[in-house]
């Protein structure tokens, strides 16, 4: 029969972070829902909200701070599902620098991802009252971190941003022992923000047919996540199969899949937890003199799609 076409823009390259979607694709869950899904990998020079605005994709994955900031910029993106309920973001420091808590950050060099991913860090620092501008008294020196853990390994930075499931494993894989490192999980610091959520443009939600399509997409994706969490080895293999760069290794993807499984909650069918949303907004608004968003967003999420997905 005729399949409905749908394009998904990831926010990073093909890896186990997105195992649920690849699993749904590989196992035919999307087809079962009458969907023909195209997955576009992301990369360092790709801003998913821009792709959405330009019509290059129907849905995207994005971190909520970045998505809310884009909304303020006039791109009406709306969260329609939130498979990731916990944050995997953390700051990883060399233990021998003597950093034990945020109070030790003054004068340190810290690597941060930018490109819309800097907001959690900035709001954390502003909550701690640590300036991040160049040369500020008692502040930190912020580096725009590249795409790997070299700044830490080369000791160009005292701390760098890592994800529990990816960069942290890379640091360990390069021979560093866990006790050589001190880590700060954003969850533990009370500044966690929602990560990989599914977003679409507001206008799509006005079209019942499209809403139905999105609901089928979310349902199939959550089915994919359920499967991937239960079958990490096979999921990692699927990732290897879909990675066309030939750069991913099975062991790394398996390790990533195991960490990712801890962040995903499949029990709610992908429905957004309003409390978690509110915590994210509060964290972003609390950004002192330079908050990430200036006002509490209106209509930035909807349960419409997940509700529809649940009813079917």
């Amino acid at each position: 029969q005729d399949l409905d076409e749908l394009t998904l823009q990831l926010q990073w390259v093909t890896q186990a972070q997105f195992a649920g979607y690849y699993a749904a694709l590989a196992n035919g869950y999307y087809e079962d829902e009458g969907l023909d899904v195209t997955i576009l990998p992301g990369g360092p020079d790709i801003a998913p909200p821009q792709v959405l605005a330009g019509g290059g994709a129907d849905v995207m994955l994005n971190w909520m701070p970045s998505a809310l900031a884009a909304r303020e910029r006039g791109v009406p993106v709306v969260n329609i599902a939130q498979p990731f309920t916990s944050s995997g973001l953390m700051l990883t420091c060399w233990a021998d620098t003597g950093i034990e808590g945020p109070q030790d950050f003054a004068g340190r060099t810290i690597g941060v991802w930018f490109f819309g991913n800097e907001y959690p860090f900035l709001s954390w620092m502003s909550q701690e009252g640590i300036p991040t501008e160049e040369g500020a008294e008692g502040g930190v020196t912020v580096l725009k971190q590249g795409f790997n853990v070299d700044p830490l390994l080369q000791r160009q930075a005292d701390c760098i941003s890592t994800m529990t499931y990816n960069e942290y494993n890379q640091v360990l894989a390069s021979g560093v022992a866990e006790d050589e490192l001190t880590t700060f999980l954003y969850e533990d610091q009370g500044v966690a923000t929602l990560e990989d959520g599914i977003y679409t443009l507001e206008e799509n939600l006005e079209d019942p047919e499209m809403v139905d399509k999105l609901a089928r997409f979310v349902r199939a994706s959550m089915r994919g996540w359920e499967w991937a969490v239960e079958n990490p080895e096979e999921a990692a293999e699927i990732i290897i199969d879909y990675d066309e760069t030939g750069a991913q290794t099975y062991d790394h993807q398996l390790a990533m899949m195991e960490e990712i499984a801890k962040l995903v909650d499949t029990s709610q069918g992908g429905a957004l937890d309003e409390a978690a949303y509110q915590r994210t907004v509060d964290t972003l608004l609390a950004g002192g003199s330079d908050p990430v968003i200036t006002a509490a967003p209106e209509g930035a999420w909807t349960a419409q799609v997940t509700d529809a997905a649940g009813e079917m």
Partner: protein
Amino acid sequence: MTDHPISAPGAGIGRSLRVGLLVRRMMGTAGPVLAVVAGLLAIWYLAAIPMNAAQSVTDAERAGAAFDVSAAERRDMGGLSLVALAPGTALAGAYGQERPRLPAPHQVAGEMWASTFALGADCGPAERERDRLELFGRTWAVHEDCLAPVTSRRSLILHAGLTLAPTLLGFAIGSLLGVALAVGIVHSRVMDLSVMPWAIASQTIPILAIAPMIIVVMNSVGIQGLLPKAIISAYLSFFPVVVGMAKGLRAPSAADLDLMRTWGASGARILWHLRLPASAPYLFASLKIGVAAALVGAIVAELPTGAVRGLGARLLAGSYYGQTIQIWSALFAAAIAAALLVAAIGGIERGVLGRMGLRR
């Protein structure tokens, strides 16, 4: 044959002279190039010792060796002082690291070999491995994916080939555009005055900055795939062609142009019979620069398109995981591809100019 004694004066001069000339021409470039390459390799090997010293010492320490200087203090030491601190360790660890700051030439060569012929160190789950191979002091897994060399995802040839398509298309677009602009510039003073400064300005715009916008804009009008990448690569390659062609189309002397006018030739005839042939040497010189630029453009274009295949994607993938050896091998693969493209243009140039009688 003849019975002239071989020792007769002048005997054999003709042949030995010709052979001598041939040998001298070969030695003319091959010898010096080999010498320079050898020199560079020597410097490279030497430089790898201090460059990788920090990691060598850290590795040794993790393996149980003890050093007088603590890790925190070592952080501020340069590579040379680390070599002075532990010369034996630095030397022993310089050429065998997984993620060296400066991979040794043989590591890069090994990776290029392996990824050209598609061997992979751990390229899949253990149970899918068919065989293991000892090469370059490393164990390579021969994954079933990797058995058909060129079509494997690890094959540099595959990636280079995939980058080549937008390169060639972009190069074609860029060259045609460049030639067309040059023709306009030469024939119209308005074009000359208004286009040239903006062509220069266009080349000062960082392509990596506007590439994502080109992609998104083209995407929003429904153009995807090869063309956006080709456009970016054309953007980089048209400029040298414009400059070179404008010079070449103006190469005919005033006397040549006057002669055409005494024959009552039209502008188009002058272009076809005089300006274009006269510009051929300039065209080829700028095409050589343009094709290299087009390759760089195609590689750059792989970033904002989220390309998962191609040399640029391969470079980035290496970069995400700190795989320096992989970065270097992709880098050299790109340079080799550029050299081959330039050589191909050179071959066409020799043929065309030879047929035109412009090569003496």
